[in-house]
């Protein structure tokens, strides 16, 4: 029997043993799904993302992605953090090419890079994504010289140039103004359906969670045992169902506000 794309099995995790974040937590994500994870700050949603990214290890239980346990960053998983982590000393072009350079540095070893051959012509791939995300004219600038929305697009290009099958995002658009944010949210969904990506977005913004996630995992106060999963709405901001779902989540989170 074929398992789900992501399977979280009996996950246990804590930073201090007295305050566990996850205890016997199970969760499944199918390939190509768009998920949001929402919850108040400190609820462990970023921790869950880091566990999925292989940057943290479960204390007990395991996380399987594509049938294999995740113990270190998986080459096919892309991660975009709130602080985008662009190299200040690299131009936009160099930042987009970074992942490819790292892959060439190690070769297709299956650990740092997928086992499939690494494309030789970085420039062509990078060009494609610079063009796709409208970054051509700022390609030679440094991150400190471009706008917040542009930086965000550099981070997306840097992630997608590696052709991931899973995209993890932590509060990706929270520092942007509303029009830029909505623009990028739409772009994200477009790219997701084009590439058949599985995406998981962690956010504290209800509107963003409902727009980006067809399914929404709600986390309240830790420790988390059973996942509360809400069916989302179509990504249409003027659709009444969209607002209904937003209200539902708002009420749910209110009931569980930390005392």
């Amino acid at each position, binding site marked *: 029997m074929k398992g789900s794309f992501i399977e979280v099995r009996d996950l246990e995790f804590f930073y201090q043993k007295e305050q566990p974040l996850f205890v016997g937590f199970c969760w499944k994500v199918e390939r190509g799904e768009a998920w949001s994870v929402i919850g108040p700050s400190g609820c462990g949603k970023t921790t869950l993302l*880091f566990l999925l*990214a292989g*940057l943290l290890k479960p204390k007990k239980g395991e996380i399987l992605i594509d049938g294999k346990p995740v113990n270190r*960053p998986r*080459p096919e*998983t*892309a*991660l*975009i*953090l*709130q*602080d*985008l*982590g*662009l*190299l*200040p*000393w*690299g131009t936009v072009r160099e930042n987009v090419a*970074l*992942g490819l*350079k*790292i*892959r060439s*540095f*190690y070769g297709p070893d299956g*650990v*740092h*890079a997928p086992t499939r051959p690494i494309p030789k012509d970085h420039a062509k791939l990078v060009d494609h994504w610079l063009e796709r995300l409208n970054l051509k004219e700022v390609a030679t*600038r*440094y991150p*400190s*010289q471009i706008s917040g929305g542009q930086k965000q697009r550099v981070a997306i290009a*840097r992630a997608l140039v*590696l052709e991931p099958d899973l995209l993890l995002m932590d509060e990706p658009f929270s520092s942007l103004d509303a029009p830029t944010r909505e623009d990028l949210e739409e772009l994200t969904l477009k790219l997701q359906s084009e590439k058949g990506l599985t995406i998981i977005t962690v956010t504290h913004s209800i509107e963003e969670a409902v727009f980006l996630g067809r399914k929404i995992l709600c986390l309240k106060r830790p420790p988390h045992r059973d996942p509360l999963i809400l069916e989302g709405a179509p990504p249409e901001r003027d659709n009444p169902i969209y607002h209904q779902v937003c209200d539902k989540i708002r009420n749910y989170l209110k009931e569980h506000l930390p005392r």
Partner: protein
Amino acid sequence: MKKREILLSILMMLLLWYIIAYLLNRPILPYPHRVFLVFARELFHELGKHLIASSLRVLLSIGIGIITASPLGIILGQSQRLDKIFLPFIYLLYPIPKVVFVPLAILFFGLGEFPKVLIIYVIIFFQIVVLVRDQAKTLKPELILSVRSLGAGRRALFRFVYLPSTLPAIFTAIRQSTGTAIAVLYLTELFGTKYGLGYYIFLTGSTLLDYSSMYAGILAMSLLGLGIYLGIEFLQKRLCPWLFIEMPH
């Protein structure tokens, strides 16, 4: 500084030199043109050999300093545990003027090349460790996590994150320690040296009483310092272009 300003300050200095030499009117301060003539002639004879010997000592010390001190600085900046263990030693030894180790180095290692290079190396080593450590500490954990998620392990992190991020600190450290390093070089070359500017200056000034040559030696030593300084400037512009960008507003 603009080129015109540099030229102007050089002219002012020369003028001052001429005036003092004229007023003093003694062989211990010859006119600048005499010194330059001797410098130009000697550079391709004796003085040149001494200049090369001194330059090699300094460059060797800087080179070994960079190779050994930068990784240590990066490790201390990134590992809180090791930082706790080693930092007290570093901060205890850092402010000690390394000149006081010159007699010790000679006592322990004799009069050869080793103690000379060692002392200059120690000066540069501490400066690089301290500055690189401070720089590595400012690296945001999110940056490291992001790059790790792109597949980077230890080696790639070193190549693509730690090295470029600490390069400016290395350059600053060398710039700051060049003055001291050359002062100490002069001292070490006073003892048991066959070739070296310190020896040349001392010999021509106090034994041969050839003051023009002595000044030529001093000029060579100044130019050695200036050369390192300008070399660093040049390399930094080449290797760290992001430090020299203009903001778009």
